[in-house]
């Protein structure tokens, strides 16, 4: 077939087959396979989190086609993309609900790792990487929440920034850094947008890379 021919042509030059074999071709032990023991579905939460993160990234990229990070236009652009464009409510809905689902899945995955004791030696490092991923995801949720620039967004950010400001000694500086000034305003919206779509996703990709490499190196933890 045509596709096969294209794949073979590329593979001949790039030698792709061993790469995807390395990625995809590995044993799934019985104790993590829900087809064997239904209760093993708890081992799916990590993969589900990744799946939802992929949805967030794709829907976020498409939202960014129309979204404007500016205090005068942000709310109008969200209103426009949701109500005047075909499937706008769906694309925004994917990103809006996906944000909560991603964090719920991430939390369930963390609970699974905790209660199966999978954080123990030799996997302590991956537990730490996981906590960093947790922090980055919370950061994505926090910065994304401001972007629609409505009352809920504005006051949630004020509350979040004041919580950060309660850190002893340096809290005040953290708050000014986050706000980019003395108030939640134009500069804050712009920074949160940049953090949300550039800085934090970049950090997330690096951490996920390490997370997955470590999983392949160390394998999944054994049965209880």
């Amino acid at each position, binding site marked *: 077939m045509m596709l096969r021919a294209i794949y073979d042509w590329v593979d001949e030059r790039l030698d792709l087959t061993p790469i995807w074999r390395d990625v995809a071709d590995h044993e799934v032990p019985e104790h993590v396979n829900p087809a064997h023991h239904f209760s093993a579905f708890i081992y799916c939460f990590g993969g589900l989190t990744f799946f939802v993160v992929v949805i967030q990234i794709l829907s976020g990229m498409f939202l960014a086609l129309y979204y404007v990070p500016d*205090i005068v236009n942000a709310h109008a652009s969200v209103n426009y993309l949701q109500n005047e464009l075909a499937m706008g409510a769906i694309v925004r809905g994917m990103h809006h609900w996906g944000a909560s689902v991603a964090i719920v899945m991430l939390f369930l995955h963390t609970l699974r790792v905790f209660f199966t004791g999978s954080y123990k030696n030799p996997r302590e490092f991956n537990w730490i990487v996981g906590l960093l991923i947790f922090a980055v995801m919370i950061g994505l949720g926090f910065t994304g929440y401001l972007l629609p620039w409505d009352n809920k967004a504005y006051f949630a950010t*004020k*509350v979040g920034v004041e*919580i950060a400001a309660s850190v002893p000694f340096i809290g005040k500086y953290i708050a*000014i*850094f986050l706000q980019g*000034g003395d108030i939640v*305003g*134009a*500069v804050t919206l712009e920074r949160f947008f940049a953090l949300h779509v550039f800085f934090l996703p970049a950090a997330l990709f690096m951490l996920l890379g390490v997370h997955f490499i470590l999983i392949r190196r160390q394998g999944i933890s054994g049965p209880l």
Partner: protein
Amino acid sequence: MSKKVSRRKFLTYMLGGTAGFLGAGMLFPMVRFAVDPVLKKGGGVGFVDVNLPVNQIKDKPIAVEFKVHRKDGWYEPAEGETLTAWVMRQNGKVVALSPVCKHLGCTVNWDSNPQFKNEFFCPCHFGRYYKDGTNVPGTPPSKPLDKYQIKEENGKLLIGPVIKA
């Protein structure tokens, strides 16, 4: 151990030093750029005539809106930015309270929740304050509402900066 640095070590140090220098040269402007707001001094606010004759101020708090000049990044509206003060008399003395909740910064409103008559109420986490701005014990805020500095000129009220507690 000899103190001599081998050729290999020397080259490694040079390479490391050069890489560090290039990296720092690249990162320094970007980091300095990102933290600039933290290092900039905020401008002070002066007193504003809020166009309210002092003898019209009664015991019941009223929301007084007034404009202050403020630069928010690249926004510097010519007409200024609107702030609110809750102005009232307490034992005959004029007081102007800041509407910013002392819990986590939402905006309080007078008598806005029918369950809590004659109190300031914050919708975010149900923070409450008595008329004089004192936080109601057992609700989230741990401090009374801030007061604005006020002045009286020609029988009119002037509102200044918030008094930092």
